[in-house]
């Protein structure tokens, strides 16, 4: 029984127990032990569907174990452990419970074998994660959290609507591939389910909640946020929509546009949020291509990405923790006093840029080669371009502006030991996977028949990156590199935060003006009619005065004459 128990339960039970433990180290220890237990449970869970319970006539599968769910479950457990270790100093009960529930529900979603279970955990991640934003406890964080929650819950509402329609159409709640005979054959329910996944996966135009919310969370909260929600959505896409061709193009767009936003963004945690969006694009391309190699690439990239993205968020978080800011314009020269954090950041940057011997290289190659093998030359070229873009914002911008560039004069103390330990372990994992790719490849959903370290491949990647680095050096030297300055950049959120409110205000103003004019006009009209009637029938009016009897007799005679005339006409007719 124990080996097929859903690991989500362990997180949820721990979250319930945590407030009853004495404050301090014991609670932090619990947040560390739970992910370890979860990882062991997932590692030992036998393949197949377990823990099927009957609820209101529906069979809910709480533990569907196969290689795809196992690799996501494992990396989520690892991420939860690293995030908790990084947050060892946090004594805020709200954040500790939220992190446990957030990781637990994300893992629960990964092992869900039916859509109802998925929906429950799907909303669970939204409800638990928002507290990591609110835990900053400022006005801005509160409002950002509300926007985040509305969009996250909204995605769940769309999901349940899609599930209901899909159930009506197909009679099945099983969380399996929905691709059928291609998008032409999909009913509305399937489209809604895809739409719900797309919101959490930050598809283009639905992406902005990510860049809005992640930089607003606490130092430690952002590390947890970066791991779960979006990769849970990637898992769901890989499960339900593998080989859906248009996702290739959706993913390609996702790899492109965040590069430009990231490049001019001043808050380094938001730069990383844009970069996260760009990395999701590679995974979505893998889902779209849908071959075994491509899906392996998506899973491998999700695994590697969670580690190096967490590492980058940790290093920028450590800077924020010590200096109070993560803005590039306020930072610089920190290698002097935070050299370890700097080195770990550089490892993360090298990993995300996919330098050979780092984790990004052995994961991203799978997706690029899968796209090339299936003959998508334009998509492949976009991905190569985007790979240079990754170097520009995550590979260079993050470490350069935080730790080098111009000296900010700040001399912060090195990050605390537990943060350094968390970063060190993550950095070690990034390099280990890069040097021994077979360890990660063994976990992938399909058999891997791929050799990333060929001379040709290493040469190509080194050329791409080193020439791009050279371009950076020259642009910097000759003053073409844009300065970091304070400010924000508008994105699609402008539509619902400025444009739509402006439309509402304009419409409301227009309606109220028109209405008040109508009311005023009606008043004037009624007044005019009233005064006209008074003039005619009122005292002293034409119809209101005394008339002579003779006048009445005369009018009576005219009336009778007219009647006679009409009668005569009628007879003759």
């Amino acid at each position, binding site marked *: 029984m124990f080996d097929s128990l859903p690991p989500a339960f362990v997180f949820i039970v721990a979250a319930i127990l945590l407030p009853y433990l004495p404050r301090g180290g014991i609670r932090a220890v619990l947040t560390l032990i739970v992910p370890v237990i979860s990882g062991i449970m997932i590692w030992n869970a036998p393949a197949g569907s377990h823990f099927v319970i009957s609820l209101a006539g529906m069979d809910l599968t709480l533990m569907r174990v196969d290689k795809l769910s196992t690799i996501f479950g494992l990396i989520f457990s690892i991420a939860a452990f690293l995030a908790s270790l990084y947050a060892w100093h946090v004594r805020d009960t709200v954040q500790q419970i939220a992190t446990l529930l957030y990781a637990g529900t994300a893992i629960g979603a990964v092992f869900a074998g039916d859509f109802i279970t998925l929906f429950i955990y799907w909303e669970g991640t939204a409800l638990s994660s928002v507290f990591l934003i609110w835990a900053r406890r400022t006005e801005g964080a509160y409002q950002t959290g509300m926007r985040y929650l509305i969009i996250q819950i909204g995605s769940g509402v769309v999901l349940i609507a899609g599930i209901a329609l899909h159930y009506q159409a197909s009679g099945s709640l099983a969380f399996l591939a929905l691709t059928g005979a291609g998008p032409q054959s999909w009913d509305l329910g399937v489209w809604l389910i895809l739409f719900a996944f797309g919101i959490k996966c930050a598809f283009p135009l639905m992406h902005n909640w990510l860049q809005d919310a992640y930089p607003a969370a606490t*130092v430690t909260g952002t590390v947890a946020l970066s791991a779960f929600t979006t990769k849970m959505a990637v898992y769901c896409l890989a499960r339900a929509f593998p080989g859906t061709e248009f996702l290739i193009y959706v993913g390609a767009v996702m790899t492109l546009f965040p590069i430009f936003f990231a*490049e001019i963004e001043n808050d380094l945690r938001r730069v990383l949020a844009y970069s996260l969006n760009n990395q999701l694009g590679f995974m979505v391309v893998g889902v779209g291509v849908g071959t075994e190699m491509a899906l392996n690439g998506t899973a491998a990239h999700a695994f590697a990405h969670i580690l190096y993205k967490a590492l980058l968020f940790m290093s920028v978080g450590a800077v924020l923790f010590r200096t109070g*800011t993560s803005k590039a314009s306020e930072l610089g020269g920190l290698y002097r006093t935070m050299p370890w954090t700097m080195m770990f950041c550089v490892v993360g940057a090298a990993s995300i840029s996919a330098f050979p011997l780092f984790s990004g290289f052995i994961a991203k190659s799978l997706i690029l080669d899968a796209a090339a093998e299936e003959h998508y030359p334009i998509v492949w070229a976009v991905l190569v371009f985007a790979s240079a873009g990754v170097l520009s914002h995550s590979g260079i911008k993050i470490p350069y502006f935080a730790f080098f560039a111009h000296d900010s004069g700040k001399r912060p103390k*090195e990050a605390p030991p537990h943060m350094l330990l968390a970063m060190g372990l993550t950095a070690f994992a990034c390099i280990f996977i890069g040097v021994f790719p077979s360890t990660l490849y063994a976990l992938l959903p399909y058999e891997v028949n791929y050799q990333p370290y060929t001379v040709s491949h290493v040469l*190509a990647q080194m050329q791409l990156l080193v020439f791009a680095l050279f371009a950076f050096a020259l642009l910097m030297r000759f003053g073409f590199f844009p300065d970091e300055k304070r400010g924000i950049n508008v994105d699609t959120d402008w539509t619902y935060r400025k444009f739509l409110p402006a439309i509402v205000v304009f419409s409301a103003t227009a309606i109220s003006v028109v209405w008040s004019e109508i009311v005023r006009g009606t008043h004037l009209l009624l007044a005019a009619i009233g005064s006209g009637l008074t003039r005619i029938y009122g005292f002293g009016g034409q119809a209101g005065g005394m008339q002579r009897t003779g006048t009445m007799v005369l009018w009576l005679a005219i009336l009778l004459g007219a009647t006679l005339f009409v009668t005569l006409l009628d007879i003759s007719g």
Partner: protein
Amino acid sequence: MAGKKNDKPEELHPIGAKLLWIEKPQNITRMIIGLGIFCALLFLADFTGMRYGHFSAEGIPGFYGVMGFLAFSFIIISTKYLRMIIGRREDYYGKSVVDPEDYPDAGLEKREHGDV
């Protein structure tokens, strides 16, 4: 800059102090030249015939190098103009965002190097 007035040795981490050389102008020039030589070597390596690919364009010597150089330059130069269009002040969205506010000190442990 190394040896700048504000770089007091007691303010630096021992590893940080050893890294100060990277800010010396002559070293920056050396690094750029070194990078250029590395680029040239990688370009020449393409003529050994060890590189192949799925698409014919990939076979052109220096394909990836040119791609990397141009992509990077294009991104940097184009974003200068992008910022002119979409850049706003930090308080553009008023109090509804965290950008204009300071991170609350309760969640931080600000320490200067040398503090105990």
